[in-house]
């Protein structure tokens, strides 16, 4: 029997007709979402021009989750994400120039061009990255949370992944151990309805991802992932609960991926009508309406913000294109720690 009391352990997001943030905070969240979108649109363009190679997965349409979720965390909370990681890196304030350069494989990239799109990382910002093995990073996040608990630090760790990853063994083993040890872990599942080209109902025995959390007695909540303020609130609550020793917390955010799984996806598994319909739930447009209505925002605010974002995205492209490729000798760096005597 599902323990419904457990579900309520995280308070649902407020749905009242006001903003839960100040005007300035609201405009900042909006700016981050617009930056993610324009950054990716420019990257998409560069990819189609052949300037970026390899595999690239776009986050367009899902921006509110990364922005809202990270707004609900402290800057030193540990974040570990899936390979669709551009939005999280930007929301964690990694430099757009270094991120774009990484997409280009340049020496000035955030991983010196070794990683590319799927493997953004900056440990100084507690952003442990972009992982390309589905579910492979979930146990790592449990380890980060375990260490915070062991060291008696107030940090929480956040594992972020899609609905598809909830079907892999590592997910289940990690949730079980996280709960047994009661570590400060937040599991954030982006349910965008497709694991690559397979619809969630064709791959998961249960339609609601929270059901899987409840199997491990982990408090869980579903949230509209296209509502940036709701995202922020559920994350604030989850982080507060985890920080005060209540153990792992689970968030299922509903959203929709506007683009294909990756750049080469012919998208036979869904109709254009479906995509167009879901685009009407644009998290940016929706939030603009709320800002206009409740925060005295004006079209001028948005125009100024968009111009600023446009400049940042253009500068990132310029920086990436004019940066050098890494020296071939860079291939041999960072294999082992330097000057270690084994013995």
């Amino acid at each position, binding site marked *: 029997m599902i323990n419904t009391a457990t579900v309520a352990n995280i308070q649902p997001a407020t749905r009242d007709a006001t903003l839960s943030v100040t005007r300035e905070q609201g405009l900042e969240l909006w700016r981050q979402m617009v930056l993610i979108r324009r950054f990716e649109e420019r990257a998409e363009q560069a990819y189609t021009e052949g300037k970026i*190679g*390899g*595999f690239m997965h776009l986050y367009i349409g899902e921006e509110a989750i990364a922005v809202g979720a990270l707004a609900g965390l402290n800057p030193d909370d540990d974040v570990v994400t899936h390979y669709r990681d551009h939005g999280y890196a930007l929301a964690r304030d990694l430099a757009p120039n270094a991120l774009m350069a990484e997409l280009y*494989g*340049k020496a000035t*990239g955030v991983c010196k*061009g*070794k*990683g*590319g*799109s*799927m*493997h953004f990382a900056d440990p100084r910002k507690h952003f442990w990255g972009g992982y*390309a*093995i*589905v*579910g492979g990073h979930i146990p790592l996040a449990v380890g980060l949370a375990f260490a915070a608990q062991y060291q008696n630090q107030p940090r929480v760790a956040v594992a972020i992944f899609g609905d*598809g*990853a909830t*079907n*892999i*063994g*590592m997910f289940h083993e990690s949730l079980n151990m996280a709960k047994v040890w009661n570590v400060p872990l937040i599991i954030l599942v982006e349910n965008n309805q497709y*694991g*690559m*080209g*397979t619809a969630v109902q*064709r*791959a*998961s025995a249960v339609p609601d991802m929270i059901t899987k959390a409840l199997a491990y007695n982990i408090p869980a909540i579903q949230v509209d992932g296209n509502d940036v303020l709701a995202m922020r609130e559920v994350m604030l609550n989850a982080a507060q609960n985890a920080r005060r020793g209540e153990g792992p917390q689970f968030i299922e955010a509903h959203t929709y991926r506007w683009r294909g799984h990756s750049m080469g996806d*012919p998208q*036979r*598994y869904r109709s254009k009508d479906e995509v167009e319909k879901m685009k009407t739930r644009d998290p940016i447009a929706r939030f603009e309406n709320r800002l206009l209505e409740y925060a005295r925002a004006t079209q001028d605010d948005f125009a100024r913000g968009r111009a600023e974002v446009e400049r940042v995205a253009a500068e990132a492209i310029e920086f990436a294109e004019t940066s050098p*490729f*890494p*020296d*071939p000798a*860079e*291939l*041999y760096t960072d*294999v082992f720690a330097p000057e270690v005597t084994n013995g």
Partner: protein
Amino acid sequence: MAIKTFLESIRDTMHDEMARDERVFVLGEDVGVTGGVFRATEGLYEKFGADRAIDTPLAELSIIGIAIGAAAVGMRPIAEIQFADFIHPAFDQIVNEAAKMRYRSNAGWECPLVIRTPYGGGVHGGLYHSQSIEAFFCHSPGLYVVAPSTPRDAKGLLLSAIRNPDPVLFLEHKKLYRSIKGEVPDGEYTIPLGRADVKRAGSDITAIAYGAMLHETLNAAEQLAREGIEVEVVDLRTLFPLDRETILTSVRKTSKVCIIHEDTKTMGLGAEVAAIISEEAFGDLDAPIRRVTGPDLPGIPFNETGEHAFLPNAEKIATALRELARY
């Protein structure tokens, strides 16, 4: 005789064999509706239905484990692991279950399973979409490991793999899928597992390769031929068990050996091939055995310069072959 890409040859072979044998089915991530991430299973879902072109959840361990169970009772599963880099959660199932099934059951159970998976670099896949995994699995007797390099071989070897009563890891170099075209004979034919193939005859040096490196090696041999050096190119095709006879026959003829693979060097396949030659044909050698391989590094970087520096290519191979010729 049709001209097909490496990919088309593999795809058509699955179509043919599924039409011929109802026990054959494919399963894996997005192999059905999408037709596979590289389109290797395209059309199977439409032709044979969802029961025989099965989309699975993202769960490699279970994909393989379930296929092993079905194979043990007479089915002929072809399991696809979307990228070879993703196979490791299934390592236990492959090594501890599939490879040991016959041995542990006094041949009471068989495991006629094929695991197809794209491997290798050269497409800017980065750290987790470029790896070579063959060395891990060549250390697991009971499991065949096959790595074709041409459309013709891909068909003959895949048919053999599907009909083989024991498990086969079928490695498809992803760079070959669309870049390599060749003649594929019509109708049914099989190429026995465990047999290498001399892809180019020569008298001065034996170059041993497989997969994408076979083509780089042939290009290098072409360059050296213009310089008057005749390189014999051996395509291993099956990586376990190795065809010792073909290797040794060529070495005894040329007396000089270069082994080429993209996988990292230490404990790579080249080490075993070199050991076989040292044990069996030491007296025939006129020069130390050379290896041209990927360097001992954790992964292939995403960026172009790093990937280029990592991977062997015709130029690097030709340089090694020239040095060997001069020795």
